[in-house]
């Protein structure tokens, strides 16, 4: 009897059976090693690598993480995540202190930042409320339209956004005797915010809100037939994702100390999508991997191409080819390739049957 029963329901290792009840990374030595390396990075890397590569990749990763949350869990592809971050950056510059004294209100950073975060979250939630009335490609079109409209608006508005020159010499926080924009303190600020966002998304994926969002992704009609207000859930997801993107926007304006329309262009909006897709949108680690690849290519492809005797400006061609290869061979990005490689190097009995594991 029991044999027959076992044959019908094959026994599996406990880890594969209960994939996400606990923190999946806690039992993963690779995750601990990566975390340790990130923490001691200032001992290894010089200022250039620390800020231009790792901090920049983490900031872009947070933006892409907000898209991963919407797209991976909610099935909503939003191209306005960078616009929300850029809007936050502008608001930090407008409410805070900058070289453009005729525009900036001169608030201290601890007032300007919460204000910017609140306004950007409201902005993203409103955009989301528009976007959830549509599905699929129309969501992409509406959010892209919002991004494009914001780009042209910042170019043409001089009263608040200072036109195409943007706002320069934005002040960064100094307190407790620390210049928080100095390389090492800033790296740790960025790392802390990135870790917070990563674990928040990871945690939320298994909380009722995140589970319901995945339900909405899989079958919105059934979710309504289970008592969920599907549109309200989608708008709430946009609100959360907007807040995450807004955090990245604050870090971005502190990183470059300036914000101009070039940072919120349509091309930059699409870069966030590329980062998320290349890294993989099924798990929150994907966007950070995608962002690191993107930043490394952007920084070093130029030298590499010149060394090969090609035009250095073709680095986007490399990114584009990489993007095509990823989309062609692995619909869940680099983490999907990694998972499949690991599964193929594992004894057969260990292999979980599901390809896509959430959370």
């Amino acid at each position: 009897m029991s044999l027959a029963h076992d044959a019908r329901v094959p026994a599996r290792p406990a880890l594969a059976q209960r994939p996400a009840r606990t923190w999946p990374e806690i039992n993963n030595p690779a995750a601990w090693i990566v975390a340790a390396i990130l923490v001691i990075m200032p001992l290894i890397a010089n200022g250039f690598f620390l800020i231009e590569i790792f901090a920049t990749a983490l900031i872009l990763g947070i933006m892409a993480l907000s898209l991963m949350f919407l797209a991976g869990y909610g099935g909503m592809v939003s191209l306005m995540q960078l616009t929300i971050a850029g809007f936050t950056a502008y608001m930090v510059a407008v409410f805070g202190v900058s070289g453009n004294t005729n525009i900036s209100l001169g608030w201290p950073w601890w007032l300007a930042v919460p204000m910017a975060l609140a306004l950007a979250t409201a902005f993203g939630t409103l955009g989301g409320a528009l976007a959830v009335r549509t599905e699929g490609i129309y969501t992409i079109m509406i959010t892209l339209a919002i991004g494009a409209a914001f780009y042209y608006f910042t170019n043409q508005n001089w009263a608040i956004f200072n036109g195409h020159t943007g706002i320069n010499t934005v002040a960064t926080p100094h307190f407790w005797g620390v210049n928080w924009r100095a390389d090492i303190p800033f790296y740790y600020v960025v790392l802390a915010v990135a870790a917070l966002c990563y674990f928040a998304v990871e945690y939320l994926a298994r909380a009722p809100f995140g589970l319901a969002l995945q339900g909405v992704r899989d079958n919105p009609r059934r979710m309504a037939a289970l008592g969920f207000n599907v549109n309200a859930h989608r708008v709430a997801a946009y609100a959360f994702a907007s807040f995450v993107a807004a955090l990245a926007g604050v870090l971005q304006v502190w990183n470059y100390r300036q914000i101009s329309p070039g940072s919120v262009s349509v091309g930059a909006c699409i870069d966030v999508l590329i980062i998320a897709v290349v890294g993989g949108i099924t798990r929150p680690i994907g966007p950070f991997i995608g962002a690191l690849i993107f930043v490394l290519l952007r920084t070093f492809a130029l030298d590499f191409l010149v060394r090969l005797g090609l035009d250095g400006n073709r680095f986007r061609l490399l990114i584009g080819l990489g993007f095509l290869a990823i989309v062609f061979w692995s619909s869940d990005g680099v983490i999907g390739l990694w998972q499949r490689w690991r599964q193929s190097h594992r004894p057969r009995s260990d292999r979980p049957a599901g390809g896509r594991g959430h959370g």
Partner: protein
Amino acid sequence: MDSVAQRLSAVGAGAALELRGVTRLFGALAALTDVTITVRPGERRAVLGSNGAGKTTLFNCITGDFLPSSGTIRFFGEDVTHFPPYERIRRGLRRTYQISALFPGLSVQDNVYLACRGVSRGRFSFLRPGKNDALMHAADNLVQAVHLSAVKDQRVAELAHGQQRQLEIALALAGAPRFVLFDEPAAGLSPTERAELIEILTSLPAHIGYIIIEHDMDVALRVVESVTMMHNGRVFKEGLPQEIQSDPEVQELYLGGGHD
């Protein structure tokens, strides 16, 4: 006394579900025409009819997936004609789908947990359920009730068809259902699974009424006390199972269909 009773029954206060003159048009096509049905609380009824008779459209109008073009729908006396689906579900209405409508990317347990969460508070909660979460226990019990405990941590996409049909029923029984619409729950089930289904349906608490769409007369007539026969979007006949079964016109419709 009489006038009070009349007024009460006039607004359908005694009925679990009351449809009056419900019509649903798709362009020029009338999927439902002037359907009037009253179902008592706890009553179990089958809706029969050939393909295109309007059975599933009837369900979609009752749950609010489609709004009726005209007519009114009352649920335990309350006019829900223009309510969105989730408001009707929160009032105790449930349904299953003819083609399983599950969440393939989530585990069995999470599917049922979502169903329990949908009809309770904290749908937007950012906090993970703890070890003693009441809804988690409710979900566990439901999973057990439909014999899916052995696969509760598997993704739904990996389940066999029969298991998906059982999960489909579990989702509809979450919380405190007062009235359930079963849309061909036996579709594609093996004889053993059919027996299990009949057992689940007959062991439901007496206060839970339901309407079941079922082509298999053996299943349908064993689990209901009344039958509504639909034809071309209209109510064709209502009565007890044995009356309907022996009705010559019904036999003509059902058996006559076989000659086409």
